[in-house]
């Protein structure tokens, strides 16, 4: 069996951050006694990503997503634990490793600001030692795919944010990396541009079998690209499994929509009434109670229609971020649901 493209085992990153109170007095005191706070940005996370998988890495700001990506791309040394990407230890920053990965940060420009992107691409050819014919073929393929033929001849400083991100992505992929770490690649872009970049990532993955670990605050990115998501919060993994099953883990409620004859009927005994529009009523009921409430409603009332829905994924993710830690999920235990083609077990302890 092929080794996973990315393997992370009990990975930790702790920062020591100097801190002091405000004011002159505290400033003078800090000259003699410096105070540091230990911040555990990543706290013992473990996961594996198979070759060719696209995985969404979700979490609120400060959850540890970017720190993890930086450790996996060799920018940061882990405090402890193990990380392997394509068989390499990222922190060793071996040339062969750096030639096979890329990290795209949505808020960071890596191209020459004053020159057309084509000049930066040429520089990348020299950096990655790409044979010219192969480089030209891939460059033109990428330019076509993202439709940036007119943009790559303009100085980068003259491009809009969205245009810059597109030419940036082309530059990041010219060496045909096997693993893509994408940190908010669509941040600040309009919906059309977001869609274009999503399609491009999917196409690159399809054509080159690349492994992708993607962070994004836009659920549309995640829903379009990722069958599997890893949810991280306060440095620990809360969920690792198919996107479709994230609700099983975190949804506490279901939404029941019913159509009844009497539009003014009191339904508060069945659940929280969320909305009422003539005879159409939306109820929120605890997930565990759904079957019983549904049966009661059908028995007690003249119900013309009834639907049971999961809340939108976006709402579920928001709920996960909003809560400190869901019941049953401890800091030493993580949920790992099986995602084809990974043979990982339903659950495993860290």
């Amino acid at each position, binding site marked *: 069996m092929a080794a996973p493209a990315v393997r992370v085992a009990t990975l930790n990153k702790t*920062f020591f951050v100097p801190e002091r109170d405000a004011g002159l007095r505290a400033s003078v005191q800090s000259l003699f006694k410096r105070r540091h706070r230990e911040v555990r940005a990543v706290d013992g996370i473990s996961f594996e990503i198979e070759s060719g998988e696209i995985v969404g890495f979700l979490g609120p700001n400060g959850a540890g997503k970017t720190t993890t990506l*930086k450790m996996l*791309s*060799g*920018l*940061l*040394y882990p405090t402890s634990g193990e990380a392997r990407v394509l068989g390499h230890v990222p922190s060793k*920053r071996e*040339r*062969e490793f*750096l*030639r096979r*990965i*890329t*990290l795209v*940060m949505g*808020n*960071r420009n*890596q191209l*020459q600001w*004053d*020159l057309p992107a084509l*000049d*930066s691409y*040429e*520089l990348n*050819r*020299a*950096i*990655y*030692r790409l044979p010219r014919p192969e480089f030209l073929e891939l460059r033109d393929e990428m330019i076509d795919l993202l439709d940036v033929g007119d943009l790559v001849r303009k100085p980068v400083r003259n491009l809009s944010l969205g245009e810059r991100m597109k030419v940036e992505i082309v530059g990041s992929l010219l060496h045909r990396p096997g693993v893509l770490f994408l940190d908010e690649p669509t941040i600040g872009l309009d919906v059309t541009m977001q869609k274009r970049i999503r399609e491009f990532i999917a196409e690159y993955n399809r054509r080159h079998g690349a492994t992708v670990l993607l962070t994004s605050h836009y659920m549309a990115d995640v829903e379009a690209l990722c069958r599997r998501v890893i949810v991280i919060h306060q440095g620990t993994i809360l969920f690792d499994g198919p996107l479709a099953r994230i609700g099983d883990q975190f949804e506490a409620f279901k939404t029941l929509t019913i159509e009844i004859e009497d539009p003014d009927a009191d339904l508060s005994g069945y659940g929280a009434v969320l909305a009422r529009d003539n005879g159409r009523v939306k109820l929120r009921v605890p997930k565990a109670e759904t079957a019983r409430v549904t049966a009661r409603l059908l028995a007690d009332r003249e119900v013309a229609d009834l639907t049971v829905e999961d809340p939108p994924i976006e709402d579920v993710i928001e709920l996960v971020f909003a809560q400190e830690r869901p019941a049953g999920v401890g800091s030493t235990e993580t949920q790992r649901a099986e995602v084809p083609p990974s043979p990982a077990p339903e659950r495993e302890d860290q």
Partner: protein
Amino acid sequence: MSTLEAGEAGRLRSYFDYYLTRGRTQIQVNFQYRVATYMWMIGMLAEPIVYLVVWTTISEHQGGAVQGISTGEFAAYYIVWTLVRNMNIVFTPYGWEWRIREGELSAALLRPLHPLHDDIAGFAGWKVATILLWLPIAAVLWIAFDPTLDPTLLEVGVFSLAIWGAYLIRTMFMSTLGMVTFWTTRVSALFELLIALELLLSGRLVPLPLMPDWAQELANFLPFKWSFYFPIQSLVGDLSTAELLGGLAAQAAWIVILTALTLFFWRFAIRRYSAVGN
């Protein structure tokens, strides 16, 4: 040719390709901002012109020479000084401080090439533009100050190498200092102290023969002289062939020492990089 030799030749060709491409990119950037670059270079002339006027005046008051250096030789020294000074402008510890504080080093670290290559190649491209832009300035200074300059072919050849040696010595010296910024994000105090020392012991403020004997002796053991006084003197002075070649050897030795020091500190420094700012 063995596989090993072929691999090594391929590696060198790749580096050459990179340096050429990066240098060319930088020249394009500099030519795009040619007016700004030119104004900046002209602004930098204030320092040598002050030195030149002071020493020319002193020399003329002392009968046309100061400790054996004639007025025309002072003029030649400070005109060549302007080029050597430009060759000495490299990526400073302030640059490293900015890179680390803003997280700008991240992009360089993602490439399969040590960031020092980018600094060396980028600034080298800038130097090529600088030399081209310097020629008209030198012509004006030549007409204004009438220097005594009659170099041999060997001196011109050694000077052509020595200015690049000076560039590499100062690059590696500043990189070694730049490593300090991984431990403290405020490196200015140490940097300014060393710049003051360099000003006195490099030949930048005054030609070294005008300094006290102990200072000249001390300068022999520091890199500053080899990045400033020696390149100037190789063209305007009257050094023997042995002194010229010995000077190039001393430059090579300092480049090796300072590169080794930078790489040694780099191994520990990079572990401290926190990639903040992005």
